[in-house]
């Protein structure tokens, strides 16, 4: 059902009453980011696939559409979302874009933002605006569509998004090798530097786990070349990693951090347990170290850290921005959402 006009009227009312809004899709990522205040603006009923031509590799979908529904529609045509997004519950497409999270396939195919072709956005002025389009190449106007990925709903209410999709690989196989932590990063770097049909690469002591995707002959050839044992439940392994249902994520009480750093960067000296995904570029850390320590370690490695899950307070969740970058964030927020209606404080306290 198309509820664009209903949502627009609600935003207009919020502008008139100077009342902040908390955009709510499926609520599956309520744990992620900082807490926000505001009256709920529910998008879950604004749903449905608007346009899908499989031979175009493009789908246009309303933001409230359940992610499961979209993935099923694509699978029925032998296609998929190339960035393998985590659901973390009853996710909607809009929330998936706003969170900007990508799964294990990301280093090999791209992130959420790489697949966004266009959006229809409800702005903080109560206007429905369209950016980008349904085509693969488009350099008309500033690329405001990709900026929606990871913006946590702070720039506007997404109404529709057009995504590039990919064909599903003919087959996927997962192999696993036992490797010492000292050799993990260099081994992953060596594999990533070769022309191999790898589609996921993760290390959790003592196992290096590799997924291969493609035509049968290519996958079999690469598996033989890499060596290691075939993991019969490979598909489940990657699903549980993506959805954070693996024991690494579920056991213990310590905070879960995400560090995005150069794939082969040496591990920061922080006490805790590590799981390396994305060939080392996305590192999960369970630790009781302070936020200051983790942010500092990420900064030293030229990357950034996110307090992903915590049972404690969600104060500074995202890497503090340097002042000049923070200034640009505030200026852009004012451009999109001059009345500061949408998800205030969800990303940074004063944004």
């Amino acid at each position: 059902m198309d509820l664009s006009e209903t949502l627009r009227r609600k935003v207009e009312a919020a502008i008139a009453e100077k009342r902040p809004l908390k955009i709510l899709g499926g609520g599956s990522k309520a744990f992620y980011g900082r807490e926000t205040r505001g009256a709920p603006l529910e998008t879950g009923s604004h749903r449905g696939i608007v346009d899908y031509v499989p031979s175009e590799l493009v789908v246009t979908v309303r933001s409230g559409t359940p992610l499961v529904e979209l993935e099923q529609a694509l699978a029925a045509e032998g296609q998929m979302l190339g960035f393998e997004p985590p659901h973390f519950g009853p996710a909607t497409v809009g929330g998936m874009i706003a969170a900007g999270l990508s799964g294990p396939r990301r280093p090999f195919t791209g992130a959420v933002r790489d697949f966004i072709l266009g959006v229809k956005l409800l702005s903080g002025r109560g206007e429905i605006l369209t950016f980008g389009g349904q085509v693969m190449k488009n350099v008309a106007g500033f690329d405001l569509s990709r900026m929606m990925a990871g913006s946590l709903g702070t720039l506007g209410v997404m109404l529709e998004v057009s995504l590039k999709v990919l064909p599903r690989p003919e087959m996927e196989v997962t192999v696993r090798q036992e490797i010492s932590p000292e050799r993990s990063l260099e081994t992953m770097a060596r594999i990533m530097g070769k022309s191999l049909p790898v589609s996921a690469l993760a290390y959790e002591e003592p196992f290096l786990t590799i997924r291969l995707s493609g035509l049968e002959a290519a996958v079999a050839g690469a598996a033989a070349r890499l060596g290691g044992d075939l993991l019969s439940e490979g598909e489940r392994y990657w699903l549980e990693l993506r959805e954070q249902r693996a024991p690494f994520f579920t056991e213990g009480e310590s905070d879960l951090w995400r560090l995005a750093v150069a794939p082969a960067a040496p591990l920061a000296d922080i006490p805790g347990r590590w799981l390396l995904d994305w060939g080392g570029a996305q590192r999960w850390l369970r630790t009781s170290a302070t936020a200051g320590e983790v942010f500092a370690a990420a900064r030293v490695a030229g990357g950034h850290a996110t307090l992903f899950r915590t049972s404690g307070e969600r104060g500074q969740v995202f890497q503090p921005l340097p002042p000049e970058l923070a200034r640009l964030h505030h200026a852009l927020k004012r451009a999109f959402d001059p009345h500061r209606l949408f998800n205030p404080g969800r990303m940074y306290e004063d944004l």
Partner: protein
Amino acid sequence: MKPELRAELIRSLTRFIPADAILSTEEERKPYECDGLTAYRQLPGLVVLPEDLAQLKGLVEVCREREVPLVMRGAGTGLSGGALPLADGVLVSLARWNRILELDAVNRIARVQPGVRNLAITEAARPFGLYYAPDPSSQIACSIGGNVCENAGGIHCLKYGLTVNNVQGIRILTLSGDEVELGGSGYDGPGYDLLALLHGSEGLLGIVTEVTVRLLPLPEETRTLMAAFPSVGGAAAAVAAVIREGLVPAAMEMMDRPAIEAVEDYLHAGYPRSAGALIICDFDGPAVQVGEELAKAGRVMKQEGAEEVKVAADASERLRLWAGRKSAFPAIGRLTPDYYCMDGTIPRHRIAEVLAGIADLAGCYGLRVANVFHAGDGNIHPLIMYDSSAGELERVEALGREILELCIGVGGTITGEHGVGVEKLDSMCQQFGRGELKLFHDVKHAFDPGGLLNPGKAVPTLSRCAELGGMHVHEGRLPHPELERF
């Protein structure tokens, strides 16, 4: 620019910029009067070639204090007039910032200065078994800073994406003098994705001072297939069918009959002259996979009515097939005093319909059009043949505008990879409404409140729609005749 202002700028700048990096005489400024879109020319007020960041920062400060606008320029190969100078402004060339600062083969990145040539990155990476994927046709000359500003494409976008998908981080200098790092050492940065925003921003938001690109492992094998079809409609259906089959070719290019004939007359690439349309596609990756994909694609092409399917037997045949495609522009240039290259993108399943529409329109205008384009991306480049000495330019521009309207009408866009610059300002008014354009201006204001960085480009003011144009070629003379254009 008033001589007094020029003299004052020179006085201020020579305190920290060597005199030979400041070009002030008309003769010195002349080479900078246009970029690859030569139909538009403007002598800049002053040309400055800063040698390092300190000089650039000083230059920005001097200009900001005096409210003098700046236009940045890389190699000057852009096709939409994005680097067209301003009479009252300073043109800043970063072409000399051409050092590769770091090539990290382990993390598969190259950190480079903005003036580094696109192809130079791949040349430096190749010994490590790596390469930089985006390959605009001007890659031998165009600079990576310009590639970022234009979000440059090329023939491998379907599989490998555009510049935005292959850059991991950039450093920019804003007009307020702030150095800002966007992206990070990993695959993403904190906060909003300003890295994506800067791509294709046509130099309106910040000055790109450093670029970190992602490198990919060289594919084990690349092979090429050519398929000939009786009609454009059949070829377009085959493009869709190949993708529907789950294949993602590294490149998938199409030529129509006028283009095929022009190329065969020019260099005998071995294309069947009787064909109504031709598809050339590349598959790359692990050797076993490539072989199978090629066979599958060949089967699909035949099912869709291909009269001939030919797989290049070896590297030399492969290069010959591509040589024809890559020389299509100059080949067409031989047939006509002038041609105009359009650039739009449409949904692939509308290709046949749009090409037929273009042919109808061309008939109405009494002009000939040849089509050579990136079919896999739906990125069309109709080449309108004409004679400027016969006063046909106005008619060509009117046809061009109608072609872009056709693109918008089927859900496409007015520019796939050449940018808006100055040439497509009025088509921007057709593509976007007031609300969108207003937000573009607000975003510009967020980065550059004084409006001094490349003002008047890319986003039209609400009250103004400039003339439409295209890549203008007179008497077969390309703006950069040494460059390939395809």
